[in-house]
């Protein structure tokens, strides 16, 4: 239907991000920031960085989730409005990476909240982050 198509197009064209550090080593955070800097400029794709969960569509999580942060991550996710998507940036956020088995780590964002896209890499490069976001959008477009 035309209206559905329009809505889908708008969702694909305008993903607003919320960045959350759930216990990362800083590597992915730097790269996420670098993706918004003049060289990579994510705003080309209509991406804006928002500061409140209510306005955001995509939750960008970096880092293996530490025990202290798990409850907060969940709360933030619950505050977001549907439809919402979660992108796990970096190997730690995907699976815990090298921190798997450490006592204060929950081994990945998907242990706490559902994840739509995984961007591997340690640290995920800005190019990979852009690619991951684009693939998420592509998947939305097609299905």
């Amino acid at each position, binding site marked *: 239907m035309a209206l559905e198509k329009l809505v889908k197009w708008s969702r694909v*064209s305008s993903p607003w991000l919320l960045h959350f550090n759930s216990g990362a080593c800083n590597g992915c955070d730097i790269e996420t920031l670098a993706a918004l800097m003049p060289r990579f400029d994510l705003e*080309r794709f*209509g991406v804006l960085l928002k500061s409140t969960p209510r*306005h955001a569509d995509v939750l960008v999580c970096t880092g293996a989730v530490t025990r202290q942060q798990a409850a907060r991550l969940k709360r933030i996710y619950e505050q977001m409005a549907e*439809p919402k998507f979660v992108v796990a940036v970096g190997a730690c956020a995907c699976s815990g990476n090298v921190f798997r088995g450490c006592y204060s780590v929950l081994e990945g964002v998907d242990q706490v909240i559902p994840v739509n896209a995984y961007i591997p890499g340690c640290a995920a490069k800005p190019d990979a982050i852009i690619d991951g976001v684009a693939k998420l959008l592509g998947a939305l477009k097609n299905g």
Partner: protein
Amino acid sequence: MDILKIFLYLLVYPGLLFLFVYSTFVEWIDRKLYAKFQNRMGPMYTGSHGILQPIADFVKLMAKEDIVPDKADKKLFNAVPILALTSVLTAGLLLPVWHFSDAFQSATSFQGDLIVIAYLLALPSFAYFLAGWASASMYSAIGGVRVLTLLFAYEVPMFLAILSPAVMAGSWRMAEIAAYYQANPWYLLINVFAFAVAVVALQAKLERVPFDIPHAETEVVGGAFTEYSGRKLAMFRLLADIQMVVGAGMIAALFLGGFPGGLIPGFIWFVVKTLIVVFILAAMRSVTARLRIDQMVSFSWKWLAPLALLQLVIVIFLKGYLQ
């Protein structure tokens, strides 16, 4: 025929449809300019050079879940965005964009429409305050209170500034003021201080950097809109864009000589002149940092208001001299 004209006026130009399309275009221009000033590209892939980006944002927000917080005053929370949007749309209708003969005083152009448009443009600020209040959230409440504080700061300079061209032209009707300056283009230069004050006050009214204190992301998260999501947030964003267009249109009508020449040339003049104002607004946003609220208030009263008063005095003396 007149009926048809009025319907066209209400719904197409400069009514609903035109204001919607043009305000998204203006937002795109604003974002592109801001990005260019920061050495970036801005939106690129949504439409040609990202021109459809604001529309995509709008449609996406319309289709999103609409959360109403449990603690919020639900009726007020839901009503406020519609009220605010209505007021700016009505203000848009008052812009003298069609050629009006002095004899034909319609519902949208009358003696005193200047005062009405100024009031209608002030209404959204009250709506923001109510929105913040109704949300029952700490950030929203602080944001709302800041909106009101700001209102007291910029509203007086704004009124004083728009008084000057009106006094000069000796009319309270925007079409007449514009016609007066079209007849005497050099007199536009007299109002240069008032023009500056009006542009700065408009920036404050639109709550953009350096006056984005009410919804400073780093301080109060999303300000009055913190709890708003989905289509109500979309309405607020649209409202801000339309407010920018109408405000720029008002300044263009008063200070830049209006939009002469009938339907088509008038339309072109409208676009060109509002874009000039928008360019100034975007540049101001790029090169400044946020002020603190008391700095904003003292800036308004120490500089903007006296400057506007000075302008008024100049205009009154000149008027006496010229007659």
